């Protein structure tokens, strides 16, 4: 299975380069709410929140619009998606999106654009 992971021993600088890269790649603009990776701060520690390919969104989708591809990555079929936003609600990481000005939802496809943008090499795509 292919997925994006966060390395344990590397410090995230909260520079948001990954967030910018993701949102610009898929929405052609930078907006924090349009990124499938989030940077959060908890008690002074900064942490990237990424899609763990858990499939909760897929199970919740009433249209069956989210399915696993050959690499095990959950993908949204935009033709089937009706934009109800249920997937967004159940995502445990808060990274499944349904922006107000978009017809359909979107999620991390493990493309690695964010990992390339990260100056600290915090992120990596792993296949297991």
């Amino acid at each position, binding site marked *: 299975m292919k997925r994006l992971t966060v390395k344990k021993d590397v*410090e995230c*600088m*909260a*520079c*948001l380069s990954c967030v910018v890269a993701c949102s610009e790649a898929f929405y052609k603009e930078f907006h924090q709410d349009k990124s499938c990776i989030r*940077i*959060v*701060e908890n008690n002074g520690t*900064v942490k990237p929140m990424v899609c763990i390919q858990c499939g909760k969104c897929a199970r919740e989708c009433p249209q069956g619009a989210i399915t696993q591809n050959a690499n095990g990555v959950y993908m949204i079929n935009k033709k089937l998606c009706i934009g109800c936003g249920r997937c967004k609600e159940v995502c445990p990481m808060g990274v499944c999106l349904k922006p107000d000005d978009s017809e359909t939802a979107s999620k991390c496809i493990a493309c690695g654009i964010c990992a390339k943008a990260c*100056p*600290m*090499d915090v992120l990596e795509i792993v296949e297991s």
Partner: protein
Amino acid sequence: MNYDRLISIEQMEQATEILLENGRRVGADSWQQRVKNQSPHCSFGESGTCCRICSMGPCRITPKSPRGICGCDVHGIVGRNYVRFTAGGAAAHSDHGRQIMHTLYQTKEGGAYQVKDPDKLKKLADEWGVESEGKDIYDLAHEMAYKGLLEYGKPFGEQLFVQRAPEHTRELWEKANIVPRAIDREISTSMHMTHMGNSSLAEALIRQSLRTGLCDGWGGSMMGTEFSDVMFGTPKPKDTTANIGVMEKDMVNIVVHGHDPSVSEMVVFYANDPEMIALAKSYGAKGINVVGVCCTGNEVAMRLGIPMAGNFLCQENVVLTGACEAVVVDVQCIFPALGPLSKCFHTKFITTSPIAMMPDSDFIEFHEETAAANGKAIVKMAVENFKNRDWDLVNIPNLKTEARVGYSVEAIKKCLDGVTNSHVDDLGTLKPLRDVVKAGVIRGAVAMVGCNNPKVRPDTAHIELMKKLIANDVIVIVSGCSAQAAAKAGLMSLEAKELCGEGLKRVCELVGIPPILHMGSCVDISRMMVLASDLAKDWGVNISQVPVVGCAPEWMSEKAVSIGNYVIATGIDTFLGVDPYTKGSTEVTELLQGEHGVKDWVEANFTVETNIEKLGDMMLQRIEEKRAALCI
């Protein structure tokens, strides 16, 4: 421990919460919300390791990219950022000072601006080697203004006020090659040094930071302070009130905010104008109430007794009361948020300076030449706005306390004269202060200054540290937003002596002072430099030996860093509660905070500690170390 006028942090926070609720009703934004939106902060910026000085960058220093594209290492990048931060602060303070000198140049008999303290002007003339004998006071004022303005760009020589420093201090500056030259030159040199392809040697950069700080503290700021006194009067102890409850429900409320007293003095003058008061009454108001925020608030509080509505992070609160007819601002520390916020209420947001122009404001340009007309127009606009109040939104939290403010160096000496035996001792010295410190009745002094910063629970560090220090018999001198924090909490009233240790309490009773002495605005930290110099001279020791330290627990602005530089350069150890974007470089950190850096040059350094309890302990410890070294 408690006396009834003490206002707790929790009470202030409750009041803020009520005001925020008021704001939510009209869809207002707030700094509290914006802090959430901005978090987490980028650590490259926060540790000073991002360079965007040239367009090959921005370059960020990481384990895999230890140098910028030009090859600059992390120490060079952090050091350059630090110099630029300092230069920004020195520029702001010094330009404020320059504005004051321009105003001084416009003074005339019977004019909007006059010389209110001719004796001080003559003393200053004497210091600067200008003949005052037989001269018309206004001719002298103009001559001094011109000479002062030349301090900004003189091709050769050093700042005139440097002569005020003790000889030892001047020698240190000489040796370290940091004697401040023309003010504009130090700022330009800082910008030049940090242009792409110049200095990347941390040591050279820190040296220039100190020099730039000195051109502020012993140049621009000092001029701002001294000549404000000449025009508006040297502060004397004065009673006033503080906290948000100083806004009056039935009156036209005008909030003055910013730094330059030239504007606020005029606003206060016209708020007392019978014609304006009659106009206010014709609109159903009981009168006109001017209150201050930030350093402009300090300036008019200590000279005119104008109430202090709050400090830096209270600037939105005054609008949120729904009872603010106008916020009149001059320069510095003004949230651009005030524009959009004022639009949620009836409040007029009036900008007055080409230096601070903002969207959603009414701009009434303030000129020294037309100050009277400008001041009157501003007050009129506020008064006429009273009728637009939405009474449903008026909600002024009932928090108000008393404060005694206005302790200039002159005022402190005067207070001390009261306990001097005039038959035996000289008057007008700091010797009585020296004697009580020597005797251990007072352990030492802390100069507490600086802003608020949401990185610290607002005002908590100021107030908790002050309480701790006075309980340990350490007298606290304050300025800027730190002063307002003290005033808001009730720590500047004479009754605050109850919170002091036995020794300090006795001194407060004897001399008739509060344990926290209000020395003014942030340019007035120059007063503290004069105080430290005079104390060292009267004592016969070096400034660095006197048990005095500086502290800025909640600082945020570039000006604060400039101040920090000149305070340590003057020989006073300084304790910071917020890191100055330098932790990314071990070299810069060592230079500023270690034993072998600035400490070798000027006998003082910085301590950065974000744990406020610890910060307080460290200050007390440093004071005791200094005492031990003096064998007292």
